[in-house]
């Protein structure tokens, strides 16, 4: 089974993407695109397994997020690693919408972004390429102190000094 990094551990990934041409929901933990989630929304209640949704960095999440907040997993896609919109989307999910489920980075992000991604609220990382995940996880520990407020730090340094 493929693996991913979650909560600072390497674990098996039980989730699979729903095929683009799927006519119904097969059993198991399924990741749906937002468009698929809209199409299959009436079947989700009866689905055997979990359902999560992949949203894009450019999503106007204010308009779509409400019904997604009860899902156990929201994945945010990085079309390429230099596209930093996902950082803001994750921050909004945690800070504004108090989302407590798994926020998973998918797509083109890279190992050297892990620390900043985790500060913005990502707690799971699914790399496209097959890399040494325990080696990569070291990048989660790049810094032990930080100036700003973020999803994992409710007070800025100036309130803690």
């Amino acid at each position, binding site marked *: 089974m493929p693996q991913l990094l979650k909560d600072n551990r390497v674990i098996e990934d039980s989730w699979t993407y729903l095929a683009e041409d799927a006519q119904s929901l097969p059993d198991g933990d399924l990741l749906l695109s937002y468009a698929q989630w809209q199409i299959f929304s009436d079947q989700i209640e009866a689905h055997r397994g979990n359902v999560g949704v992949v949203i894009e*960095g450019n999503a106007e999440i204010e308009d779509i997020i409400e019904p997604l907040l009860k899902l156990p997993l929201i994945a945010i896609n990085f079309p390429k690693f230099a596209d930093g919109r996902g950082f*803001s989307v994750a921050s909004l999910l945690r800070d504004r919408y108090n989302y407590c489920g798994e926020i998973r980075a998918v797509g083109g992000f890279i190992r050297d972004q892990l*620390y900043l991604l985790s500060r913005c609220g990502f707690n799971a990382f699914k790399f496209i390429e097959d890399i040494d995940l325990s080696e990569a996880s070291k990048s989660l520990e790049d810094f*032990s102190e930080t100036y700003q407020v*973020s999803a994992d730090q409710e007070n800025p*340094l100036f309130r803690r000094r």
Partner: protein
Amino acid sequence: MYKYDNYDHKIVNERVEQFRDQTQRYLAGEIADEEFLPLRLQNGLYLQRLAPMLRIAVPYGMLSSAQVRKLAHISRVYDKGYVHFTTRQNIQLNWPALEEVPDILSELAEVEMHAIQTSGNCIRNTTTDQFAGVARDEIEDPRPWCELIRQWSTLHPEFAFLPRKFKIAVCGSEEDRAAFLLHDIGLQLVKNDAGELGFEVFVGGGLGRTPIIGSSIRKFLPKQHLLSYLDAILRVYNRFGNRDNKYKARIKILVKAWTPEVFAERVEAEWEHIKDGPSTLTDTEFARVKSFFPLPQYQTIDGADSAKQLATTASDNIAFSRWLDRNTQLQKQAGYRSVTLSLKPAGVAPGDVTDKQLETIADLADRYSFGELRATHNQNVVLTDVVESDLFELWQQAKQSGLATPTIGTINDMICCPGGDYCSLANAKSIPVAEAIQRKFSDLDYVYDLGDLELNISGCMNACGHHHIGHIGILGVDKKGKEWYQIQLGGSANKNAALGKVLGPSLSRDEITDGIEKLLDVYVENRIADESFLNTYQRIGIEKFKERVYASTT
């Protein structure tokens, strides 16, 4: 100036180790070129035409003598014995070896310096007035605010991969010496009717390919909300800025597309959610950061008496008197002046200094300026708080080290990017043009007669040499593999900021100095009394200049 505590040291040291690890993995082939690119840029490292270039951050231009000595040491050990002062008050090394960069960063960390976010699509070094704290027209010292912004922007988790680079400037005085209207965010310190301190917030200014003057989006932002408001602006930009075309990716394009009014509404809506949150600044924090910028222990000096003595000394020595006139500034403290050490002698790339000169600058700062100095966006160095009776001695020592060229604010004090000699983006060389102009106009009486004149040179349209805001701007362009130079007139970077207008077809390298001379002739013939070049241009328009320059070449 600001002193690191354990937290600041820890963050900077961990950044050094992070970059050391990244460099090792890159050299071992474990990180691809295109992935290493933003990682190294976020640490100020470019791979240039001839060698790497490392840009070191000088937060809001402040340096201590100890830091300057360290820079001299680094330039000697790891480079060719000189450094370059940039137009963003930073310092560049032109010849470091990639594998030694982590060691350089580690040495910098010892003196509370770093190269964090000096390049890349992230929040860059915050800049301000080189006369902060001593300017006579100051509303409030901008440096504590710059430091608060520095800490907020350093490794901000959400804004490390913006659509494009992002620059913030703070202006604390009546006159603008920070070109804050030409920044992604320009902050003007203001007081409201109740006497409370806050900011007028401007966004969407910038140079580059599409120069635009910033628009005010909030007349008064109470000071305690500074960081959450910046968060709101950056979040809107990060989410909605253009990412498809790098030439349309700066915030100015978004502000223009939405209009400043709509942009302001989006920011205010975002801010509503976060405005009274934990990022709200506290009085304790204001007091803490402010305490790092105390007034020095001034002596009580009889201003009139001191001025009289200085005038006597100057009357005996024409060279000193010229320098006094051009290179020193009165301060709000009687009997003290700020001295600009010129990094623009003819024959040296504007902004370049040797290791020896750096050490002299450090010595002068220790002796005369409480051990501190400032880098300016005009690529010079300022020593503040010099007792007037020390000026003659200081001048003699500066002169010996080639730091007293008495041309500050004149045509020969030009701003100039590294250009085609170093930079891989450049379309044309800029340093030889600067030198040719300095050589052509070497008669000081003529230069003084021309008075205040800003001449800015960029080697390409990215505009690192700020050509759009020079009274005379020169832009290097490439035409079929040959270097040509476009002239612009009438730019200005003060509160009535204006962008220069293109004079006409570009000139060849051979024609450029003659072209400039003709512009100056038109000015001298047409000026009324003490009118400056810029004012004359504004009064008579571009046509007369154009006719003269192109009359003989066509």
